[in-house]
């Protein structure tokens, strides 16, 4: 492989990693508060549909992107109602949210298949995009990609250095102690999942507004589940999520490129790559890990005091 082929491949890596990155960051924020969310796939696809419909209706991609985030928040609120208010099982609620979300998006989206919507296009950053190699790889994209360069450090700062971020993490690590200290654990958990859902919605909208500009059923194609796996791979840290998302972006870009160039490998075997890689990544991350990095109370509901 020559340099002329490598640079476009790496640029495509960044682009196809971006939706997964949004979703992974959302899931990390969500799970830091102690609520497990297996509904990422469902929330993402609702975001994708909402963004697409909003872009068609308003003609304004930026507004549509924002609305998609809010749609993600609304979808994930169902999970909040079931798990936080009604103390339902978080694993099953997340699965149900995915079934519901995918069904809902296909139900409303079937009539949109093949239609297009105004979306984002490339906007090279002056000067930065002229740097050799780095420029074309990182600074010749749509604005939504640039946004993901800012979110991980902000999220890291927020979770580790603000009062609110520490409260949110306490709700995920030691809910009983946090309650004893006078923190409103359920409140922090609500913020955790709603903000998390916002980012998952954005990840879905990236697919319909920037990645394809077209609606197809099952647009997310398992990316939400890959995000769930990447949260574990990233040890619940925003910085490592970037690395994980680009790893998957790379494999997806490579697989598309190989299909386009017409290799002898059948396409169904190429399409298996990201899913097989997810399993490998999980094996790798559990092998590397000494103690569990998951928030200690992840998946357990707050029992009412009596």
């Amino acid at each position, binding site marked *: 492989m020559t340099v002329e082929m490598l640079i476009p491949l790496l640029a495509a890596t960044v682009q196809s990693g971006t939706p997964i990155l949004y979703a992974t960051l959302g899931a990390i924020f969500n799970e830091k508060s102690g609520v497990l969310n*297996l509904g990422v796939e*469902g929330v993402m696809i609702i975001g994708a549909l909402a963004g697409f419909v909003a872009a068609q209706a308003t003609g304004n991609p930026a507004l549509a992107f924002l609305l998609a985030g809010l749609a993600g928040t609304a979808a994930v609120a*169902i999970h909040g*109602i*079931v798990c936080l*208010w*009604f*103390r*339902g*099982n978080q*694993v*099953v*609620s997340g*699965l*149900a*949210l*995915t*079934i*519901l*979300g*995918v*069904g*809902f998006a*296909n*139900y*409303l989206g*079937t009539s949109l298949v093949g239609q297009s919507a105004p979306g984002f296009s490339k906007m090279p950053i002056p000067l930065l995009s002229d740097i050799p190699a780095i420029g074309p790889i990182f600074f010749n994209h749509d604005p939504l990609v640039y946004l993901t360069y800012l979110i991980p450090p902000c999220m890291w700062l927020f979770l580790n250095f603000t009062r609110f971020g520490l409260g949110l993490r306490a709700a995920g690590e030691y809910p009983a102690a946090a309650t004893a200290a006078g923190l409103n654990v359920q409140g922090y958990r609500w913020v955790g999942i709603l903000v998390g859902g916002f980012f998952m919605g954005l990840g879905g909208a990236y697919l319909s507004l920037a990645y394809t500009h077209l609606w197809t059923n099952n647009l997310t194609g*398992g990316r939400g*589940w890959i995000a*769930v*796996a990447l949260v*574990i791979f990233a040890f619940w840290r925003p910085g490592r999520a970037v690395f994980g998302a680009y790893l998957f972006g790379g494999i997806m870009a490579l697989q598309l490129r190989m299909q386009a160039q017409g290799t002898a490998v*059948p396409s*169904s*075997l190429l*399409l*298996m790559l990201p*899913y*097989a890689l*997810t*399993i490998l990544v*999980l*094996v790798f991350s*559990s*092998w590397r890990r000494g103690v569990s990095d998951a928030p200690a109370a992840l998946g357990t509901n707050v*029992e*009412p005091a*009596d």
Partner: protein
Amino acid sequence: MIRLRIIKRQEPLGWRSCLVLFSAIALSLFLSGILLWLRGTPPIEGIVSLFSGGFGSRWAIEDSLLKAIPIFLCSLGVAIAFRLQIWNIGAEGQFALGAIGATWMALSFPEQPAWVILPLMIIMAMIFGGMWGVVPAVLRQKLQTNEIIVTLMMNYIAILLLDYLVFGVWKDPTSFGFPMTPTFSDAAIVGKIASTSIHWGLVHCVILGVLVWAFFRFTKTGFELKASGDSVRAARYAGLPYNWLVVLVMAMSGALAGWAGFLESSATIHRLQPSIMVGYGYTAIVVAWLARLNPLSIGIAAFLLAGLRVGVESMQLDLQVPADFGGIMEGLILLSVLAGGLFTNYRLKWEKKHDS
């Protein structure tokens, strides 16, 4: 100031938990009605069409029973794993592998009589499905990987493997380019019961359901499984072979889903083609949870959710509602029932609060 307090119930709710279940299902029907109305479909007509389409005629009930067969077997499988608190989300993939294993036998031995080929197909379907369940179990026990994600990713891989086979090596040269294998020989097809459209797989379901129930009720391993499911830590402490039990339940789980794959390929479509994958494995999760993992209730819930699938098809014909509406309803039912669990497990009490 009056506030609501939630207090853990000391005694089980008893018969009133049925009331909670029915209220939850009624709520999900109501919400589905609203969704229909928002899209401009008359909601009452929609729900009526759904029920009469799923259960309203002999033909509808037979069709619902036919669809209940694979759902029941997959659900029985995932319920066994769920009992041990192993989250097997992989029935879909294990089903696909079962169909692949059965098809491999049917295509390899087209000349054999039924009493040879059918057992071969069943055994291979169980081995293939079971193997697809054992891999995530071993990864979980050896490397602490998350079985939810591994089983799910293996679903995607299984479906792509099925595509690879029917688009490639197993494709029928006379199919005019359609991705499908040749039709099985008559001996490799499970027939229909008397003058109905229902195949003998229904009887397989009854036998396997009783066997699973008896396994938990009467065998030592079954007892150990029940004990481990209640408390993993206590099971380890009592010296139960927990690692082995995890592998065992996943093998059983996968084998049952594999059996369902065998029946779908052999009795329903008589060959292998991509349309065999319609998400029974995911519906099975909903069914197992609704039925609280009890084999008899799984039978009832499988029939009801199969009826929902058939009913949605009739809504599609009558009122042009997209078939994906079934997924929405499944999700809504599951979420309502989960939320209803609050009333089963806790007591609500309004009380006066003096401070603040």
